[in-house]
Structure formats: C-alpha cells, structure tokens
C-alpha cells in the first residue's frame, strides 16, 4: 500500500495508521468506566439455580450472601432458606367494603421487605374508583390520589399486589426459569438467576412485578435484617421483584406485614387447605371475586365484602 497520506475535504491527516490509533484510543476510553463498576466474582457468576442446589450448597451460598449483605448494610443480615410446609397453600382475602385507601399496607410492605426508596419500589398499588362509575375498566382508576383525609366521599379503594396465581403467566414466560411456583403456592424469584429481561413483567396482567432500574437504596437504619433467600433479602439492580406473601414471615407462621398493618382489618390471610381458616370461611360464605378471572390465571387473592363501608 502506498505510504502517501491521503488528503481529504475534512482536512485531517487520515490514513490507516491514524484512524486505527484513534479507534484504539476511543475504545480504551470507553473501557475505563467498566472497570469502575462492581467487582466481578467467579463464585457469584457460577452460582447455580436455587432449585438445583443441594442443601449443603444452599447453606454455603447463603453464608456468602449474608457476609456480603452484612458488609454492605453494616448490619447483621440473616437469610433464611425455610422450605414450604406440607399441607399448606396460602390464600389472601381483601375486604373491599372496609379498605379506606390509607396506604399503611404499602409502607409496612416497603419496610418489611427492604424495597428500594430511591428509586422508589412499591409492591402494593392502591387504586381509587368513583362510586357508580366503571370498575372493571381499570383505566378509570387513580393511583396517585393525594387527599388530606381518607376515605373520600363518593370513592372506594382497591389494593392490588401479586395475586400468586395458580396458573401464573409470568412463570410460563420466564426464559430461564428464574421464577417458579413453590409448593405452598407462593410465586418466587431467584434474584441471582434472573437475567432482567422483563418478559415476566410484560406477561403479568396485574402489574405486580417491579424492576430494579438502578441499585436499590435503603436507609441503613430501616433495613430489615430478617430475610428469606426467595423473599426480602437485599437485591441487586437489574432484577425483577414482587410481593412474596412475606415468605420470611409466613413460613415461620406469622401473618404478612400488610395484614398486620391494616388499621381497619380489611386484609385476611391463611391456609386454603385448612377448612377452619378464616380464608376458607370467607371464600365459602362471602361473595368473592378475583381480578381478571377471564384470563384463567387462577389468582389466590380473593376480594370480598362484609358490609357497607364505614
């Protein structure tokens, strides 16, 4: 090739050497920010899917995760791997004649489940409707109502969260099986397996799934240290999360945080397979419906009515 430098209208000395140099410099400059990003660890990269791990492997992974989390949040974090109890299938009831739209369930959930404050993540959305107007058409709902006092005259409220479907479309959609239905009916996510493709979010008819668009930020003193691997343990950016019926509490026999927080007792929870539970009672004795039942997702979140709203 001729060593003659080709001149051109731009006026820069453009020959193969100079543009190769420039390209190399450009790529090197681009590589610098990548080094500043989070440190890479082979153990994390090669971690197996939760369902494939033996109990021993789970123990070791949890030890590593607990150490990392405790270091990051400057608090001793416990991660449980409690399995589903046999003979249990969780169900949820929501008394629409009682909900006053106070959103105490939303904030209790945020605190219990270590949801990011900035950017904000809410697992529960409370929708407000006008009495007498279209209800099934959720386009008529208002999520951002901000009155001085609730409940407001002429309105009613409907909280929505993960419905823990028996026939979950999100589980069908996930390309890596990072989300699946546990034997006690809770649909869970392995946050270390999720690739963040968000197909499950497109598949969910209830807007239940939230994505960590950035690294979650929680005030250190508000971090809840009692966590579950499949539930409220500290998550990373780029993974999907959602309500898990407070798996860390319910597998230990306690009520979910939202059930306990509701000041008017609109939230009910229990074991669908126990004929004496309150959830069974309300399904068998009250008028229950579930959201978007025509989609055949078989939610385990039942809406019912006991009386007129106070």
């Amino acid at each position, binding site marked *: *090739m001729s060593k003659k430098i*080709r001149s*051109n209208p*731009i006026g820069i000395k*453009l020959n*193969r050497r100079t*543009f190769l140099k*420039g390209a190399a410099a*450009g*790529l090197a*400059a*681009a*590589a610098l*920010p*990548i080094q500043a*990003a989070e440190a*890479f660890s082979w153990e994390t990269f090669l971690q197996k899917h939760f369902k*494939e791990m033996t109990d021993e492997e789970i123990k070791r992974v949890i030890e590593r995760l607990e150490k990392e989390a405790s270091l990051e949040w400057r608090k001793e974090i416990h991660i449980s791997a409690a399995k589903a109890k046999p003979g249990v299938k969780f169900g949820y009831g929501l008394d629409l004649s009682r909900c006053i739209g106070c959103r105490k369930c939303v904030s209790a959930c945020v605190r219990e489940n270590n949801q990011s404050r900035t*950017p904000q993540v809410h697992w529960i959305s409370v*929708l407000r409707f006008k009495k007498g107007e279209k209800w099934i*058409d*959720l*386009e*008529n*709902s208002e*999520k951002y109502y901000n009155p001085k006092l609730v409940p407001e005259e002429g309105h009613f409220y409907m909280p*929505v969260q993960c419905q823990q479907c028996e026939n979950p*479309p999100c*589980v*069908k*959609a*996930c*390309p*890596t*099986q*990072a989300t699946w239905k546990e034997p006690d009916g809770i649909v869970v996510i392995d946050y270390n*397996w*999720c*690739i*963040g*493709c*968000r*197909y499950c*979010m*497109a*598949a*969910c*008819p*209830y*807007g239940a799934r939230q*994505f960590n*668009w*950035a*690294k979650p930020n929680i005030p250190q003193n508000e971090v809840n240290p009692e966590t579950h691997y499949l539930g409220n343990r500290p998550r990373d*950016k*780029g*993974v999907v999360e959602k309500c898990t019926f407070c798996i860390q509490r319910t597998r230990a026999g306690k009520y979910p945080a939202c059930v306990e927080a509701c000041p008017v007792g609109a939230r009910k929870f229990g074991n669908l397979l126990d004929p004496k539970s309150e959830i069974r009672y309300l399904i068998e004795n009250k008028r229950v419906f579930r959201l978007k039942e025509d*989609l*055949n*997702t078989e939610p385990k979140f039942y809406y019912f009515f006991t009386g007129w709203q106070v």
Partner: protein
Amino acid sequence: MVDAIKVFLKSLIRLPKGGMVFYAWVAFLLVLIGFGLSVYAKQLDRGLIITAMRNQVSWGFYIANFTFLVGVAAAAVLLVIPAYLYQFKPIKEIVLFGEMIAITAVTMCILFIMVDLGQPLRILHILPKPIGMMNFPASLLAWDVIVLSGYLLINSLLVLYTLYRLSVGKEYKLSLVLPLILLSIPWAISIHTVTAFLYNGLSARPFWNASILAPRFLASAFCSGPALMLIILQLMRKFSKVEIDNKAIFKISELIAYTMGINLFLLGAEIFKEFYSGGIHKAPLEYLYFGLHGKNLLTPWMWASLIANITAFIIFLIPKTRENFVTLNIGAVLIFIGVYIEKGLGLIIPGFIPDSLGEIYEYWPTNTESIITIGIWAVGALLYTLMVKFAIPIYTGELMAENRAAAQKAK
C-alpha cells in the same frame, strides 16, 4: 480446497485496504460505535434507569429495534424463494447479499437483547441444562433464542458454502444446498412467527393478544426488509464491481407492493374491529391515532407512518413509478421509515399503554437509549460493509482470476 482458502485469505488481507470513501465510512461508523460503547458502559454502571423505561412501560426502544430487525432478517427469505426454487436468474445472483443482510440483522438483534438485559453477564442462564435452565417449551423467549441462533447458523453456512464454491469458479451444488434452503424458508417464516407469538401469547396485553398479530408481523417484515435491500443493492452497484440486473430490482419492488397491500389491509382490519366493536380494549389504538385522555405523544408519528406507507404502496403498485429509480428510492425510504415507526413505536409501546392497572405512562426514548441504538446500527452497518467487501472480490471472480494469472506466470 486449498485454492479456496488462498482466495479467502487474500480477501481478508485486503479487507482494511480501500479508497477514501471506504475509510471515511468506516471511521464514521467507528465513532458512532465508540459513543455507543461509552454510553453502554454508563448503563452497565448505573442500571437501566438511564433509559426512559419504567415498570409501566418495561420494554422500549431496544426491543422495538429488535422486533423490526427480526423482520428484516426474515425478509431475506423473500429473495431466497425465487432465487433457489424458481431459479429466477436476476435474483439468484444477489441472494448471497440478501443472506448477508440476514446475518447482520440477526447479529444486531442479539446485540439489542444484550443491551436491554438488567443482568447481561447472566445471559448463559438462558441456555439449556447443564449450563443454564432454559424454559423450553413453555417460554416463547426460549423458542426465540433457538430459532434465531438456528437462522444465524443456516445463513452463515449458506454464505460460506456459496463463497467457497465461487472462489473456485463453480456454482453451488443444488443437491447439497437444497436441504438447507428447504429448511431456511419455513425457518425464516418461523423466526418472525415466534417473535410475533412472544407478544401474542401474553393474555395480559390485549393489544398484542390478537390473532392478527403474527400475520401483521410477517406482512410488515416482508415489505420493510426488501425495501432496505433495494437501497443496499443500489449502493453496492454504485460502489463495487457487482452487477445487478434491473430486472431483479423491479421484481423485488413488485413483491413489496403486494406485501405492503396486505400490511395495510391487516391494519385496516384491526382498526375496524377495535373501533366498530368499541370495547375497552380499543384504548391502545385510540392512544396511537387519536390520543387517550389528552395524552397524544405518538399520534403525529403514527399518522406520518400511515401516510408514508400508503404513499409507498401507491408508488410500488404503479409500474411506471416502480420502475423509475427516483420514485422507487423515495418509496423504499418511505416504507423503511413507515414500517420502522409502525413496528417499533406503534407496536411495542401501545402494548403497555394503558398498563395492566389502567395507567398511561408516555414513553419516549432518552438520548442515552438513542445513542446506544445508533451504535448498534453502526455495528450492523460495519459488519455488513466488511462482509460485502470480503465477498465481492470472490463473487466477481476477481481474486480467482488473479490467482490463476499468478499461477500461469509462475509456470
């Protein structure tokens, strides 16, 4: 075999050498890629929050580009059928370049998926056991990975084989190639059908959960892909020694007329169904063309796209305008823009508007998303440029002639 390798190596060595236009073009693309890479590094660091995607609209510009490009990749088959099956000579000669467009398009698709992932390092989880835990056959995304990889493989094999035969001055052996061709035709249709089913199967999104979606995808793919090809083929004709018969170009434009006709008909069918029945699920279409509750960010774009498509349809339908290169190129550009808007903004975004809980979040890509997108298109352009530059000397027989001349001289 040895001769073929010699020819391949020669072409490879000559790859970085070229005229001023070549250098300027490659430099321009490298600058765009550089920008894209540095912005992507920022996205890796900060997370996808630097895009405009949020929980309400969780798929955006990246997936819109992916969907459009799967269509372009599938459209390469439109050339393959007449070339191989009907031995229509003018197209037979250029099918190689169509297949290379397919390879480029699939590569860009893969890149768009990678930049859209929240945890790209975990992409291996999508492979079957024991490396990953692919959710086959339940997840349509798993199907998409399989068919796209397969399509990439088929087209790469076809291109390499054709070039190999050309480098020794022979025509491809139909008996060897036929099984691959017979496979590639339904395969090409299937990549776009699987991509359509990806959206179609979601009962949560009534805008996508319509049986008309897969046919619409195919119709729009089969007019936008060839439109792109028309432009590229003319460029190649201008800047290289490749000869392309006008007859090939006009045949492709005729086919585009029919596919665009079908595309417009299917759109009309959708519009009729939603607006005449008037149920609540007409909301996304209403948002696109008329605005919904005062939100109308996309309406000017959708009308522009519709006008572009109808104009292009008329141009390609009338033989006089179809065979006039000025109007032909205007038509090709119009189709490309029209279908790009229709398939990207007009298909992905309204699936999420209104969202599952009835909320309207008006999505518009951020600058960072656009820069990364342009960077990936630049990667595709660079890849195609280099592939074509590699292939043309072999295709025209130039290198082979050189070798023969050198061999003669040596004797």
